[in-house]
């Protein structure tokens, strides 16, 4: 799981173009949206693309993302249970 979390952080940094950030700067238990990293609805869409591209997980409804993208740890957990690649 730790490896997945680290890889996921790298993928998030790349997909969201978070210049100057490293995986170490992201707390996997902190909120990605709102108070935490301060991401918004467009970032959620980018994370949906990221999950389909890298893990073969397809979300039809952007609202599903609200639960899944709570934190990197929650996201990693969801991916490990649902990945098709």
């Amino acid at each position: 799981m730790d490896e997945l979390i680290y890889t996921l952080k790298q993928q998030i940094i790349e997909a969201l173009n978070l210049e100057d950030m490293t995986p170490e700067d992201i707390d996997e238990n902190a909120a990605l949206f709102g108070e935490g990293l301060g991401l918004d609805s467009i970032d959620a869409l980018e994370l949906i693309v990221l999950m389909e591209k890298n893990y073969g997980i397809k979300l039809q409804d952007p609202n599903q993302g609200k639960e899944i993208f709570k934190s990197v740890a929650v996201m990693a957990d969801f991916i490990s249970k649902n990945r098709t690649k």
Partner: protein
Amino acid sequence: MKPILITGAGVVSAIGNNKAETLEALLSGRSGVGLLKYLKTEHKEFPVGEVKLTDAEMRQRLGIADEAITTRTALMGMLALEEALHDAGLSPELLPQVGFVSGTTVGGMDMSEQFYLDFISSEAHKEYIAAHDCGSCSEMIAHHFGKFAFMTTLSTACSSAANAIILGANMIRCGEADIVVVGGSECLSKFHLNGFNSLMILDPQPSRPFDATRNGLNLGEGAAYLVLESEESAKRRGVNPQALLSGYGNACDAYHQTASSPDGEGAYRAMKEALKLAEIQPSEIDYINAHGTGTPNNDTSESQAMKRLFGEKVPPVSSTKPFTGHTTSASGSIEAVFSILALQHGFLPINLHWSQPMEDGIIPVTQPTRKELRHVLCNAFGFGGNDSSVLLSSVKVPEPVEGPTQNKGASTSSATIYILSAKQISLQQPLSEAWMDEPVHYSEPFVRSIDPSFKEYVSPIEARRMGKILKRAVATSKEALRASGLETVDAIITGTGYGCIENTELFLDALSKEGEHLLKPTYFMQSTHNTISSLVAIQTKNHGYNATYSHKSISFDSALQDAWLQLQSGKINSAMVGGHDELTETFYHILKKGGMMGKDEERCGESAVSIVLAASCHCEEEPRSHPDIQPLCKLTGFQILHQPKMDTLMDAVTKLLHSAGKTLNDVDFIFTGISGNYTNDEAYQQETQTLFGDKPLLKYKHLFGESFTSSGLGFYVAAQCLNTGRVPASLFVNPKEASDKQPKCILLYNRSDGKNVSLTLLEA
């Protein structure tokens, strides 16, 4: 304001190829949205509102040869313009007196997306390269009918055509024109269908605006134009108005690059301003043609805005998008024509597919209703919160009695317009005037701008969705605002030839190479031209007027003209005018292949320039600025002409100088685009010789490079010369003419694409 007459209109959309077919569809409830037929895309799952003609069928109707270079947006535009001109009785010989203002965002993208890989790697289809940009699209539409006096292109995403209406109205109110044909055209493209899909806002079912179950929009396409005319002109020509344009408003939501604010601030302000300008009460509005896209976000936000403005008594509302799909840049004028038909024929267009009220939403009109209408509001909102609303009235409305306040804000008695500050990022030291003494010289044909550190202007988290062009625009704007001493400006107006070309390229590249899946919304949302202006508004929390012009080498000049008209008439007291263009390695080679870049020894660059202007408003002598701020110079004359003959140009120069109380003798220097790419310098020199005799010529493009908005840098350079009271020797076309003479009056002559000319008079 005194209403402006609408003396003609033409429309093409999914529900008809002219006004008669459109009226029949609106009255009978016949939607044009259905299965995808004409656009070549994998996404057959989305219903769309296509114009029911192939490109070939449109060419045939218009009498255009099969082998001619055309784009679908241009062809639809021609069909609608043909009807509008005919309707208003405007024959080709009258067009040299008529202005043309069109809105589009897609431009020639339908061809670029098909041929992009050819553009990169072969010679095939290279003749479509010059048809890519928005300005070329407008010129293609207009040139099918003849020669217009003036033209420009608005590109504010889905409110483009509404803002074209607003510019045309401002021109007529300021006495700059008697007749302006305004509107917009937009075809469906794989590019924006996939873009909207990446934003997950396309409904696989027919769209249901204002319904509890609404789940997104259906895209559509089409074009529409209105003929705006002054009362005097219509009387002279003996034509009757079909409806009146009695008010309009443009405001910026300044909330988010793609989402509308929960309280609909921008929409509220736009509608409120339209009512105020028309001097009518909310209770007098009989119908609102809503923007109503069918996305959960828009309809919530727009409902809030309407409730804030109208309280408990929201007038009958409907969205006509279930008829046509969302026709994006053209929707403002298409729906204005629907509103005019409703006024003329006395009915309320219905909101198809509505069944369940949404939480806190408005209840739209669903039953066909015959009703005499006096005043109709028509909304068009765009990405980035570019919100506009136009107020159309029946010709049966008695004209308000002419009183002293009637033409408030539209008098041509000019205020003095000051340039308070000007900042640049280009090939020279950024945000600095070091070029005056130590210019940087280049030998490469294409040079990227020298960027400052952007950390001071944007946080790393904000920077995640900002390409270079956006960071440069924000940095120059924030610096210009700081240097102006103003806390805020009344308007943010931007010119850009190609917009965010880097992100456009990234999206096109992925679309062409990887196919129509898993595309990044971040690239798409930065590809619209108005991203720049609206992001500057978001970054500076500015809810004022916001517009973006994209018309070749007069993109900056068009933005300046908009500011000039509104400052002169007292509609605004200050404005931030920007000229922004970036270039990528790939697009440099594509544009060069398309014949749009010059010889190798000439410099292609990028430009970012932001200028703050302020008028000594009608009540005060000096601009509302910090007392310590000294203006750089004054703007005392401005005009754009389209393909002028030499005698027309000479008249225009004389008139421009005369209205500023000057003659050619008072002009110290002529600033030219010599060393540019789009024309040869010889032609420039011959023209300037005829126009200005032996006046010393200055140049700037050898230091600042050529881009579609380099005329903005020319403006900046001239302003700095007037401010410092000297012209650096490096700027003289003829080095022998270099002197210490203190400049007092400079005329800028921009004609770099060979078609459009702008004249700008600056004085110390």
